[in-house]
């Protein structure tokens, strides 16, 4: 184990990244020279032990100077602090290699392991091919054909028609068709749609089941205690968001928006000034080992003067942008917190079906420390949406949100609806729970982030569609100004703050953080908020730990025994997965990347008892015994529902969700 010439560059890069202070620079250059001298005078005889001593000395010196320096290098060994968003994309691959090589055996390797270092996977993130890509240019490129993206596209075209301008708008969507990846409860507040397309009723939008009743139950194992409903759902509708988005897609195409489903935006394109100029789609037809298949097709560059990212919660490109431009700090935001929602659509006995009935529950089967609950909405055609949402800052690594959902369905008050019915579809997706405190600065050079990728979900209302749509519309209005009148995209931030989104989210800001203190305090504060304070208090509660840090070590908890699926009310994961119509081209590199391939077996399994094998609603992660009877992680990427729970909840943030070949993923139609 010797220092090679290339190591010096690595060290220099590493120093450059962590410390921009003069003192640390001088000290580090000194250290480098010291080491270089060592090498030139026969490093062959330098042993591992000597190396260790040198490195230790080197790092101690750096640490000392960072303590005394006033620069950001204070965070030398904890580059990812709790409140900052992860700076994954910024750390260089070089730094990773350096730390891994220097400290394989020392006890300080765990210290360094906490340094956020991303090994950018070589195959698809860079344009490794020398083959040039086709480039198509538009005025506006929208990534994601969801409520936010389509609202933005529709609004842009409306403004063009109104003001006689002509802007080309392109929407790229990773699902096989518009609406295939859309899943939501959904009790829809038509506030934004009324502004966007006031004639929606005449134009036969699939919104035809008004809310008829609103119940709220606290469940214990055998009973359901009715509580006063905190929701005001009068005037709202029970819908299938997938159907609504398909309708929005048709409306957008009528207006001249070009929508391309089946194309996954996998990388952001930058120009020489670090400005975003568009996105690049995935190369298609790459085999599992990385070689090109017979039908290999290079991705294309879709360039836009403005790029709007509307990827939904924890969008892969949005997270990269937030990291790169430090948008969380810029907006004074805390980290985002999430919940995992698992949903089924059932067709039930028509005698039990009450169109428009809305039910929410709290309590059983979750304990006092875990925030979550269920929903049961009656749609039309004897169909109901039933789902379970669990906040991802749960502490018990043995918790299995999917199994909690299956358990929940057996509650006597719930099973009465389901008996005699059949499941039509299944799906899962994470959602934002950070609310007001976690909204990042949504504008970056060359574009903006809209919808759940920024995070406008109103947690106490459990509605995010209307705010997502409104944010898309506001972004469209500002974009139109930018492209036609030379305005600044920063106006979007201003527009958000002046809109009813801000108002609404500000009023709702303390409901969720109150639950950090437990279920009862949370409920108490919710009651207080709802009836008395209504958001008019001077304080803003902060979030607790980030979701991935909240998981306790497995030794502090005991495994939970979940009942076996009975095949009538509850089901096993493969059966449910089949109902999600999920499919990926199997012969492609797995889109779930491990930053460090050793962490699953060295950290996740021994310390946390492999939580990813439990929270993933698609059973992508399994630990299988290999020939030596050692448990190894097996990634069944083909099952992936694109929910992003692993990207959020992995304790060491080792799993990176990247976008697979376009057209793969779930096939939701009534979700």
């Amino acid at each position, binding site marked *: 184990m010797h220092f090679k010439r290339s190591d010096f560059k690595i060290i220099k890069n590493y120093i450059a990244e962590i410390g921009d202070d003069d003192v640390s620079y001088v000290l580090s250059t000194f250290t480098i020279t010291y080491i270089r001298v060592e090498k030139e005078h026969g490093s062959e005889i330098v042993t591992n032990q000597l190396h260790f001593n040198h490195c230790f000395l080197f790092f101690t010196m750096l640490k000392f100077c960072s303590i005394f320096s006033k620069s950001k290098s204070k965070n030398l060994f904890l580059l990812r602090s709790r409140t900052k968003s992860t700076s994954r994309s910024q750390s260089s691959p070089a730094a990773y290699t350096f730390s891994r090589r220097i400290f394989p055996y020392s006890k300080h390797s765990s210290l360094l392991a906490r340094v956020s270092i991303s090994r950018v996977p070589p195959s698809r993130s860079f344009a490794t091919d020398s083959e040039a890509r*086709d480039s*198509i240019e538009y005025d506006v490129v929208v990534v994601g054909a969801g409520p936010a993206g389509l609202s933005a596209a529709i609004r842009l075209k409306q403004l063009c028609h109104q003001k006689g301008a002509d802007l080309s708008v392109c929407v790229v969507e990773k699902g*096989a068709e518009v609406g*295939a990846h859309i899943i939501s409860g959904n009790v829809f507040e038509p506030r934004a749609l009324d502004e966007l397309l006031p004639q929606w009723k005449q134009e036969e939008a699939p919104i035809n089941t008004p809310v008829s009743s609103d119940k709220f139950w606290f469940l214990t194992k055998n009973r359901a205690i009715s509580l006063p409903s905190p929701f005001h759902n009068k005037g709202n509708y029970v819908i299938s968001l997938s159907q609504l988005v398909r309708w929005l897609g048709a409306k957008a195409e009528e207006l001249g928006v070009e929508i391309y489903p089946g194309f996954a935006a996998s990388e952001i394109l930058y120009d020489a000034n670090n400005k975003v100029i568009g996105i690049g789609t995935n190369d298609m037809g790459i085999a599992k080992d990385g070689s090109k298949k017979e039908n290999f097709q290079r991705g294309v560059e879709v360039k836009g003067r403005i790029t709007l990212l509307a990827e939904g919660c924890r969008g892969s490109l949005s997270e990269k942008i937030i990291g790169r431009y430090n948008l969380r700090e810029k907006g004074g935001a805390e980290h985002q917190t999430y919940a995992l929602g698992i949903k089924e659509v059932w*067709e039930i006995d028509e005698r039990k079906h009450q169109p428009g009935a809305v039910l929410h529950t709290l309590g059983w089967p979750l304990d006092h420390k875990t925030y979550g609950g269920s929903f049961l909405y009656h749609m039309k055609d004897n169909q109901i949406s039933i789902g379970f949402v669990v906040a991802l800052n749960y502490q018990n690594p043995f918790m299995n949100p999917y199994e909690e959902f299956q358990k929940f369905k057996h509650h006597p008050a719930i099973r009465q609806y389901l008996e005699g019915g059949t499941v039509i579809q299944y799906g899962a997706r994470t959602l934002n729970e950070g609310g007001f405190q976690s909204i990042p600065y949504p504008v970056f050079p060359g574009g903006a982030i809209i919808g759940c990728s920024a995070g406008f979900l109103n947690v106490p209302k459990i509605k995010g569609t209307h705010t997502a749509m409104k944010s898309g519309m506001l972004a469209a209005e500002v974009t139109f100004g930018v492209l036609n009148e030379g305005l600044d995209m920063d106006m979007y931030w201003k527009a958000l703050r002046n809109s009813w989104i801000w108002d609404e989210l500000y009023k709702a800001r303390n409901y969720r953080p109150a639950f950090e203190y437990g279920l009862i305090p949370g409920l108490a504060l919710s009651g207080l908020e709802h009836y008395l304070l209504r958001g008019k208090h001077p304080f803003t509660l902060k979030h607790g730990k980030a979701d991935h840090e909240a998981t306790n070590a497995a030794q502090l908890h005991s495994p939970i025994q979940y009942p076996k699926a009975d095949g009538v009310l509850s089901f096993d994961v493969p059966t449910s997965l089949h109902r999600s119509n999920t499919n990926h081209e199997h012969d492609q590199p797995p889109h779930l990347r491990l930053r460090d391939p050793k962490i699953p077996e060295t950290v996740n399994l021994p310390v946390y008892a492999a939580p990813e094998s439990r929270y993933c609603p698609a059973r992508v992660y399994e630990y299988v015994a290999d020939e030596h009877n050692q448990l190894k992680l097996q990634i069944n990427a083909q099952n992936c529902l694109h929910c992003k729970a692993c990207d959020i909840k992995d304790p060491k943030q080792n799993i990176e969700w990247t976008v697979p070949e376009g057209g793969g993923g779930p096939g939701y139609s*009534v979700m």
Partner: protein
Amino acid sequence: MKIMVAIKRVIDYAVKIRVKPDKSGVVTQNVKMSMNPFCEIALEEALRIRESGLASEVVAVTMGPSQCLDTLRTGLAMGADRGIHVDSTSALHPLHVAKILRNLVQIEKPSLIILGKQAIDDDCNQTGQMVAGLLNWPQGTFASKVSPSSNHPGFKNQAFAPTMWWGFPKDKSNMSQIGKKEYTHGTMKSLIGVVLDKEKEEVTVDREVDDGIETVQLKLPAVITTDLRLNQPRYATLPNIMKAKSKPIKKFTPQELNVEIKSDLEIVEVTEPPKRKAGVMVSSVDELIEKLKNEAKVI
């Protein structure tokens, strides 16, 4: 030389099929539809023949309601030159499709018709054969390019039977080199799939049959239906999808083509297959015999 490819819009293969509550059919509302996989392979083969210079034009034909235009556009995006849409909202059975194709052939006059071997919704496997019969054209069905090293059951029995080699063209020089790397005469090494010989107006097709691979040589004009392992269909790229919007699509109706859609078949009922019952563990041979006698009634 013109090639006509017939494509069908079917329920996507990854979708979980549900039977309608009234048992009249399968739920097709709000369900993802896409091009039949075998038709994709047929279109890919036609495109490859055109790209090797042996054909001038590939025409894609689809029949059904107006939503079929989406599938046709996908076909145009893959590379077909023109599209034909036969608009019909009634159910089209293979014989109707075959008759419509025959009448279209009289208008378009292609030298080769390539179809998928069957559609994944009805699994009929009849249309290609019926078209060939109605037109009185030779047919090469189940065109495939299976390599001998695969686990195809036929290869184990039929290793070197001389009957497999009839019809192999003797003269290599006029052969087109479509989709294969090496052509070794008279050995099992590489199979050629579909090979066109323009001068001799012949097409040689490797057919994947139950016994192994049968090679037939057909005089053009001919009908070919494609099987799964013939080729890997290409992805439609974004620029091609944009170009496809401007490619011409001609519309016909069955009445214009003098075909009457009158069916002699009536679908009475569609039900799900019976649910598999769990297996029962028996503790002794006597119990097994007793169960076979009394419960299953097979002995």
